[in-house]
């Protein structure tokens, strides 16, 4: 156990690529949590995909021992994810900390998401240490960035610490600042146990491992504990620290961060945000929890080979053990057979899940066009949840359809304000406040339909501002909208997997774009394939994929028989990734075509 006065719990808030993982590596190295030899770059990003894409998906924690003025302190670093899709995880991490390191790239300045998270930290009463990273870069302008930060968050420029996570310069100052400037936890040492579960994951051998922060009291190995939200009583089989290797200890005391293993094997029973107390004489009031992560987009996932349905179900079950934000329920499609309608935090999350399913579980999948969650109000006032165009009630019965809106914050260099406004207007956005952070940088606020931002908004924002703008968003309310269902017919047959809900003003443009996109994506077949878009039975657009005319290798002589055979084998393999829709072979990419429609 550690005296509370010698504990500091903190997170690092940073925009993607501003160097959080690198800084974490340096901190681990400098505090000796890992020896140089063990040092794998970016140690905290453990999943393969995370390493490949360079993003942090799951919050993780590590305990660092740092000697300050002769006293050894335990510094618990709680990692947070860096992509908009995963911002809900940030709030959990912040609730487990007393302080945060706000890390900003010296050549980039502060970004929207970082600012949103910094505001969140301030609201939660966290102490913030502003840190400027990458001072070794020739393009670094730490003075300007320091002014920007203090201009927004107050404080003096001298309090901003300057480091290079790459070279290690300034890291010692940062460690000292963490001890000196962040408050120690002040929990009730003798009060009943209250510990906050801020993350959990499933381990094949150990079952569910919960990460928690002890707020009051202490948690001993062998205690009977009570999960207050799920009303579950379990024995604490093991508790310990993450150093980052697991290190079992007899007790987690007040203010400490660590892990808990019980006999629980079902991840649904351990809810992130739940409070753990003792079964006997436990606490009465739970800690303020957080909201369940709420899926923002839904998409159907179908195995290309119908026989793989059960394997897909197993794979989703397994993935969910590690990703409580993933939700799914069985769905059937006339075109695609049996699959699952899945809810995701955003498109990146959707892509990651799909990639993991294909890679780790060896599945071939078709994903349908993503949709947000609409509400249809039918006669009699009943409300129907619509997560797929197929859920839409009969138009004759529908009083109105409502769609979710979000509040968006964008930070951009001022020269791009016009461009950003144009983009937002084309996405049915409403302008809100506009604040100049510095003469060169502007913070803009908007309200937009969620459906307009989940697809390509972020990419467009990035490309139109040469990568300089950043954004963050949070759910707003639902509003009535003039929405219609656009059906797509292939060879005369309506293909449910292609239909989509869009604003009426957009239906013609959408139908036309979808049809011409599909015409490009669907290869020529042995017969003409008409592709049509229809709204309520009325055809609004039509194109034809003309029958194939030439499919033959021109030259096949003695010299190239083996080579031509290989070429044909390769083409054949490509065909296997096609899905038969009626008589038509449709490549899997076609099913996500809606994603890339650029009206």
């Amino acid at each position, binding site marked *: 156990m550690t005296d509370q006065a010698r504990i500091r719990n903190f997170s690092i808030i940073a925009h993607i690529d501003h160097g959080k993982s690198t800084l974490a590596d340096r901190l681990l190295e400098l505090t000796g949590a890992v020896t140089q030899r063990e040092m794998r770059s970016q140690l905290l990003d453990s999943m393969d995909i995370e390493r490949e894409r360079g993003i942090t998906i799951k919050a993780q924690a590590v305990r660092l021992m740092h000697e300050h003025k002769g006293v050894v302190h335990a510094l618990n670093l709680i990692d947070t994810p860096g992509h908009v899709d995963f911002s809900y995880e940030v709030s959990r991490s912040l609730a487990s900390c007393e302080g945060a390191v706000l890390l900003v790239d010296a050549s980039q300045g502060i970004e929207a998401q970082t600012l949103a998270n910094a505001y969140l930290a301030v609201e939660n009463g966290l102490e913030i240490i502003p840190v400027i990273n990458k001072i070794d870069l020739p393009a670094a302008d730490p003075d300007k960035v320091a002014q920007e930060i203090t201009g927004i968050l107050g404080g003096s420029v001298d309090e901003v610490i300057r480091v290079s996570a790459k070279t290690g310069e300034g890291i010692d100052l940062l460690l000292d600042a963490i001890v000196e400037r962040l408050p120690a936890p002040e929990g009730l040492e003798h009060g009943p146990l209250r510990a906050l579960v801020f993350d959990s994951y499933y381990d094949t051998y150990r079952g569910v491992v919960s990460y928690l922060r002890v707020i009051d009291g202490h948690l001993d190995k062998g205690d009977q504990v009570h999960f207050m939200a799920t009303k579950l009583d379990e024995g604490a089989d093991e508790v310990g620290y993450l150093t980052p290797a697991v290190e079992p200890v007899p007790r987690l005391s007040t203010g400490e961060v660590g892990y808990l293993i019980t006999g629980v094997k079902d991840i649904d029973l351990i809810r992130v945000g739940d409070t753990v107390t003792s079964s006997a004489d436990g606490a009465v009031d739970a800690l303020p929890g957080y909201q369940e992560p709420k899926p923002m987009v839904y998409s159907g996932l179908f195995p290309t080979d119908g026989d793989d349905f059960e394997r897909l179900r197993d794979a989703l079950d397994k993935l969910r053990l590690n990703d409580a934000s993933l939700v799914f329920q069985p769905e059937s499609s006339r075109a695609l057979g049996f699959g699952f309608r899945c809810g995701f935090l955003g498109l990146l999350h959707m892509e990651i899940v799909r990639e993991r399913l294909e890679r780790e579980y060896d599945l071939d999948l078709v994903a349908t066009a993503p949709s947000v969650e609409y509400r249809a109000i039918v006669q009699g006032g009943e409300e129907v949840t619509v997560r797929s165009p197929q859920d839409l009630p009969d138009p004759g019965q529908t009083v109105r359809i409502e769609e979710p809106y979000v509040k968006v914050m964008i930070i951009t260099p001022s020269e791009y304000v016009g461009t950003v406004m144009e983009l937002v207007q084309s996405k049915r956005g409403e302008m809100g406040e506009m604040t100049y952070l510095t003469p060169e940088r502007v913070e803009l606020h908007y309200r937009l339909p969620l459906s307009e931002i989940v697809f390509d908004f972020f990419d467009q924002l990035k490309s139109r501002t040469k990568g300089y703008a950043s954004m963050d968003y949070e759910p707003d309310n639902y509003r009535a909208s003039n929405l219609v269902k656009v059906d797509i017919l292939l060879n005369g047959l309506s293909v449910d997997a292609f239909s989509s809900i869009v604003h009426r003003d957009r239906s013609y443009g959408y139908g036309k774009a979808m049809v011409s996109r599909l015409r490009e994506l669907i290869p*020529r077949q*042995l*017969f003409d394939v008409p592709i049509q878009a229809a709204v309520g039975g009325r055809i609004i657009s039509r194109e034809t994929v*003309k029958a*194939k*005319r*030439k*499919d*033959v*290798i*021109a*030259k*096949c*002589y*003695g*010299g*190239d*028989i*083996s080579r031509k*055979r290989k070429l*044909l*084998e390769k*083409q*054949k393999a490509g*065909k296997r990734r096609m899905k038969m829709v009626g008589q038509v072979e449709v490549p899997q990419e076609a099913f996500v075509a809606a994603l890339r429609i650029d009206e």
Partner: protein
Amino acid sequence: MESFELHAPDSAALADAARHWRAAYVHIPFCARRCPYCDFAVVTPDEQVGPHRRYVDALVSEIGMEPHWQPLDALFIGGGTPSQLEPDQLALVIAALAERFGFAAHHEVTMEANPEDWDAETADGFLAAGVNRVSFGVQSFDATVLASLGRLHNAEQAVDAVHVAKAAGFDSVNIDLIYGAVGETVASWRATVERGLATEPDHVSMYSLTVEPGTALSRAVGAGAPAPDEDDLADKYELGSEMMDRAGLVRYEVSNFARPGATVRYNMTAWAQGEYLAFGLGAHGHREQVRRRNVRRLSAYLDMVESGNRPQAGADRIGGWSREVERVFLGIRRAAGVEAGSAGAQLLAGADGQRLVGAGILSDDWGRLRVLRPLLTDEVSRAVLSLSP
């Protein structure tokens, strides 16, 4: 070997007899420069290792390493550009083959030649060396198209080359044509075929421009240059075939047309899954159920042969079911079609085969499979390759 003069080019008897012929291929890699669309094993002057004579000597040594065989019915000297060699250099190679294997009575010896290398003197020289059939890389008679294909000759040189060859007394003259290049209109293609037919060739090979990976053409297309268009290629193929037919040249393979008696025995052997020896850079052979290939780098080829080793890069045994499937996928390219056999029977019994028959692409006449729409041959080939025993 009996003479097949009486058989039509697309006769089934002729196509099937070719299975038993003995053929050989010799590769001459030298070219004045590399054409942007070409992915053959080619050596340009700046890549050359030693004089041509060194390569010729290596060929002769390599021929001596091949186990003895029966006399050859057909020899094909391809390239690269065989006409880059002196006639007496080629004579050494042909003589080496004659000495080691001998030639059958009515044997065919083809060489490829580029029009700009050809005149009466060289024609006589190659004839004397033992060549009796010549294939010219004409490609087009349109100056714009020739330029876009990066060719070094002009239309007049091509016409002259054919006339000179005929006058010199070659048994058979072929022209290669390419359709679908950037800048080629349908009218230009029609004019090319007309001018080609006006030279009265015995044989025409008509290829759609193919974007082969790794070529300059493929890089250009990757960078956004227009790729050959499927409909344009189909239109030109149909037009070309019709004109050949009217001129009395019969289509006997997807891209090959011949007057009766002028089919290429070497190619017929390959399509019938027959055996052929192979010598030279990047050459491929087929003997005793093994398909083998030579190294493609000139320095490696010379080093290996000069140190007494076969310049082999790899070999695959094609036997059992794989061989049966290959037989059908090769044979199906011919107008004469192929004996269905066990793979063909299985194809016809399955859904793919029925779909192809239903779509009018494949026919089954008493156990003989034929492709009725040659432009869709690969639909059938892939279906055949998908079969399992």
